[in-house]
């Protein structure tokens, strides 16, 4: 017997280029309060808490321990942490709720990219013996992928520019976005990618609340039911992967039930324009699907929170009645190495 589990609330910060004036805890606190307020729950009412973040962004070991102070973990709480995007924290919380050991879960994640050079920082997640010593940065690796897609005839530079323009136009309606409206497409940063093909670097946090069964209905007028979640990882070495494809995304989507019926909305975690080309093909999204109505990661990409935000944005559209069946995607690692897909549905209207 399985349980129905839903996203019942979502909150996020305004994403900004820098938040020097705030500690991570100070950045996170308002989001935690907001998401709890939306359901009327208090920390002590939550059955399980799980977060996602990265010490390398904070520049110190055990940075998540201080964020826990912001949650107010007293009396002690049942809690865990993943050292990656909060979408995977949501996955851990979802499995916890499936076991029946908890009926509600708080999931949050955050990242401040502003204190360092995020392009340099992300090189440290590469193979430490063969790849990391060469310091290939995240934009250079994404450019390799973009060039492979152009060479394969899947896209071209004007098409990529159109992805960027559409995303930032959509972000006009998103008060939290960092980049919105007409954004200059700019010069080449690493060919073939121009600045406009790349995500903004910024700080931000997000939180969602999950609830099981009838509990979800009491907390949210139209819960976003999680019909399936799955995530898959690929080989790390870029030389052994076809960068024009994402078999892990396709497999995760299949296992999450994404192909069983059409979706009307897709929130994709594609920090670089060319990655949307890969994801659209892997997820079989055509023009009938509203892709990234929030503006996506091209409008705001707080690392470690951007994937959780995709799930939150998809759920929020269901809450508001703007979607009946939505797909949310999160990614981790260079050139879409690891991918998570969640399928969310509202009750029939």
């Amino acid at each position, binding site marked *: 017997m399985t349980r129905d589990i839903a996203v019942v609330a979502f909150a996020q910060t305004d994403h900004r280029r820098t938040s020097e004036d705030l500690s991570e805890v100070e950045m996170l606190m308002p989001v935690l309060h907001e998401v709890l307020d939306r359901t009327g729950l208090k920390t002590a009412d939550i059955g399980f808490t799980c977060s996602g973040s990265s010490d390398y962004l904070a520049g110190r070991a055990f940075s998540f321990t201080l964020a826990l102070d912001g949650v107010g973990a007293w009396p002690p709480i049942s809690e865990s942490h993943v050292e990656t995007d909060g979408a995977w924290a949501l996955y851990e919380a979802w499995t916890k709720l499936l076991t*029946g050991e908890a009926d509600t879960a708080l999931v949050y994640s955050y990242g401040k990219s502003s204190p360092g050079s995020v392009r340099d920082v992300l090189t440290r997640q590469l193979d430490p013996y063969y790849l990391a010593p060469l310091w290939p940065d995240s934009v250079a690796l994404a450019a390799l992928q973009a060039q492979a897609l152009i060479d394969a005839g899947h896209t071209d530079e004007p098409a990529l520019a159109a992805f960027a323009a559409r995303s930032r136009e959509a972000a006009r309606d998103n008060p939290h976005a960092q980049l919105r409206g007409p954004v200059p497409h700019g010069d080449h940063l690493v060919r073939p990618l121009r600045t406009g093909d790349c995500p903004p670097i910024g700080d931000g946090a997000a939180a969602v609340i999950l609830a099981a069964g009838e509990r979800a209905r009491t907390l949210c007028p139209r819960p976003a039911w999680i019909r399936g979640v799955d995530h898959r990882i690929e080989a790390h070495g870029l030389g052994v992967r076809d960068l024009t494809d994402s078999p892990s995304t396709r497999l995760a989507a299949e296992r999450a039930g994404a192909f069983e019926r059409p979706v009307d909305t897709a929130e994709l975690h594609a920090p670089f324009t060319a990655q949307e080309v890969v994801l659209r093909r892997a997820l079989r999204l055509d023009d009938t699907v509203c892709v990234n109505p929030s503006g996506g990661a091209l409008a705001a990409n707080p690392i470690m929170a951007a994937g959780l935000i995709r799930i939150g944005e998809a759920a929020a559209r269901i809450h508001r009645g703007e979607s009946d069946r939505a797909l949310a995607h999160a990614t981790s690692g260079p050139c879409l190495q690891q991918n998570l897909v969640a399928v969310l549905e509202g009750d029939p209207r």
Partner: protein
Amino acid sequence: MSKEPVAVVGIGQTKHVAARRDVSIAGLVREAAVRALADAELTWADIDAVVIGKAPDFFEGVMMPELYLADALGAVGKPMLRVHTAGSVGGSTALVAANLVAARVHGTVLTLAFEKQSESNAMWGLSLPIPFQQPLLAGAGGFFAPHVRAYMRRSGAPDAVGSLVAYKDRRNALKNPYAHLHEHDITLEKVQASPMLWDPIRYSETCPSSDGACAMVLTDRAGAARAPRPPAWMLGGAMRSEPTMFAGKDFVSPRAGRDCAADVYRQAHIADPRRDIDAVEMYVPFSWYEPMWLENLGFAAEGEGWKLTESGVTELDGDLPVNMSGGVLSTNPIGASGMIRFAEAALQVRGQAGEHQVDGARRALGHAYGGGSQFFAMWLVGDQPPDA
């Protein structure tokens, strides 16, 4: 709601040493994983998902190393989840993996935790910068020594108790081929004559810095029925966290630890842990934490834990053996240390613990903690499946 029972059918660990210069990080983790698969008589193809944990990424200087380790752990095309809950991570990682089986999301899961401490200096990796923590907080010992002092003052424990624990654990380690420290000439006098590092903690009462990995294969009822060796059954498991510092925090006996143990005992129908549990692997990085955790985990009344230690109850041949493997005091690849506790508890109830086997161990507790005594993870395993 019914949960799927979770069984441990494979356990593997590396020989823990100060520096494994002969292998990469990938080579280290693969060694433990291959041994766990061999113990379960399974292949990589039998594994549905991988759950991996380690303590801070700064210890090896690799951000999110699970990305690079996907190939080495046969995870390509599979779900791979990374857990990080400070020193308790090895235990939390096993519990997250167990939940995947309990929730019936996956049938068979490989879980693994590791640390290759020789890649850096954990002492300074653990010395957090001001203004976040108090200054002059040199490593974990600097943080924990005042709390040991508080325990001694509160309980009236004699000064010698800490050295008794270290002497016991180091002797137990001689029976464990995987333990890092094999001090064949250990004596109580040597422990007591070792240099004072963080008063009252002496050099020989602290854990070493180790390179090592530990892996387990967890599976469902059907998987357990096919297992070649007796499985260990998970009878209860829980995590609890509390804030790092606040006015009401009891560093000697944190409430999160007490609540976590109570939850595990409730799940496992343990009425009296002292009587109902046969062996304990607890996270004791500094010797005095044995008596402190005996109280926190409900094996002794407040202020009485040191009496169990002093009277020999926690010796390998005692009434309640603690850290039969030699414990964290003999082996400490930080990120793996919690999982080693969980795995050693499972080895005991499977009857596979070799020279450090406790005769007739039917129920064993694995315990881990981390951060500023704020994160706790525990499981209780038995030789019989849960009744439910």
